[in-house]
């Protein structure tokens, strides 16, 4: 696997992270080593094996479609500094 600066910058951008030059320099060999090591799992034959998204068997759970009490508007906005007229205020989208 060719892990280079271009790949790291692209992945960081997708993950909404800005890495400094120093971070890229530090992370590059570390991530190469980690991904090389993780690639070991490729050697194991997993034909016809189902993926385990969970370790314990689970069934999908849905609730009845009945409105019920939830957080108040005040509670929902309690922890944000950016609010206006009972809504969250976010950064510019367009």
């Amino acid at each position, binding site marked *: 696997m060719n892990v280079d600066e271009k*790949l*790291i910058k692209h*992945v*960081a951008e*997708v*993950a*909404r*992270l*800005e*890495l400094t030059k120093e*971070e890229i320099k*530090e*992370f590059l060999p*570390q*991530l190469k*080593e*980690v*991904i090389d*090591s*993780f690639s*070991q*799992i*490729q050697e*194991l034959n*997993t034909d016809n*094996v*189902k*993926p*385990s*998204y*969970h*370790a*314990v068997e*689970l069934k*999908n*759970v849905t*609730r009845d479609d009945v409105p019920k009490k939830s*957080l108040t508007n005040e*509670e*929902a906005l*309690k*922890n*944000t*500094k*950016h609010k206006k007229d009972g809504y*969250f*205020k*976010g*950064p*510019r*989208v*367009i």
Partner: protein
Amino acid sequence: MNSIEYIKKAKNGEIDIVENTKKTLEEIKKIDKEYNYFININENYSLNQAEKISKSNKKGKLYGLPISIKDCVCVKDLESKAGSKILEGYKPVYDATVIQKIKDEGGIIIGKTQQDVFGFGSFNTNVGKGYKIPKNPFDKERTTGGSSGGGSGITKKIEMPHIAVTESTGGSIAAPASYCGVIGLCPTYGRVSRYGLMTYSNSMDKIGVTSKDIEEIALMTSVISGYDRKDSTSKKIEIPDYTKKKYDKLKLVLVKESINEGVEEGVSKNLINLIDKIKYDYVSMPLNFKYSIQVYYLCTMSEVSTNLSMLCGMRYGMHEKLEGNFNEYFSKVRSNNFVKEAKRRIIIGTFARMSGFRDAYYLKALKVRTKIIEEYKKIFKKYDLIITPSMPNIAPKFSDINKMTPLENYMTDIMTAGPNLAGFPHISIPSGFSKDMPTGLLAVANHFQEHKLIDFARSLKK
């Protein structure tokens, strides 16, 4: 006096729970100055709770008992940030289900304990920006282990009755319990509600218990277990009364690879000595010991890279001035407030889920996970408990941890990654000392068989 005796006396009126809370707060503040086990002690909160409980007629199972809570578990109105800077200032508007259960039984929350940010670490050195690293109760130059380092350290140091609520994703209960010389029980995935637990890896996070005495573990596990409709991954299954002994004879099997080279001699020796008088067989677990670390990290990093996308400076935690477009704003908040280990994990996880790599890494890891679970299940057809050391070493010194690469760091989870990725309950029990530092034994049981772990620990106590 252990917590069980304390609760009895408190219920009889022999102990004033408000006075006891005051004394406990004094003790933890004193310890914290030297060892950094708490990220938040809110005396008013604890004393108000104690006064309210002392005036109530209800005397629950945890009546007046001081309980510390790992920072990643939400407590209403008490700053909760999973040890991170990015969630600084966040005060949940609701209690996690485990907190509600503890409060209903009269437990008193004495503080939020220190951890690696979001659980990212085996040594509790990945603390949030500006926070202090907890120190081992036996040697301040060494780690407590992580990520439940604060909860395990205070459990060892405190003299007042106390139980710690901790959490594990890949070994965060067993590792610090082993390094600090206390007992840590991580229940089956789905046994305890995760509602109100800040997510690291949603398919592996488990809330558990750390304490000095197995009867305390049994009591708290009984209190916090159970189905919760607010957590769709919690399981509707009978909860046994762990406070009563059920199993006399348990079939044990020791994993060959776990006492081979790479494991410190003192660790293996203590383990063998501890189970010497009990009959046990040997088994090999080649898949677990060859691939569990890779599978564990690929799965958890993939999950966390998407779970932590909620942290972007809009609804809670750290905010910045609203400027630039949304990509610029989110990137600024995240880049300024995540520590390096969080960035590393998010980047590797994003990579493993990206188009072109997903099948080869994330999906492949989930398939290998299936094979590892099958390897365990096959052994559980014949045996009750699988035994290994909890950690391959004694608590390392900070000076040695600083020299480790991230990969070397991840590799120390070799004993705990397997049971965690497979959702099996496990318990770390002190097995002795090596070079004046504690070592631990890890027992793993089949899904929902925590009772066997508790009864095994009881038998060792004798």
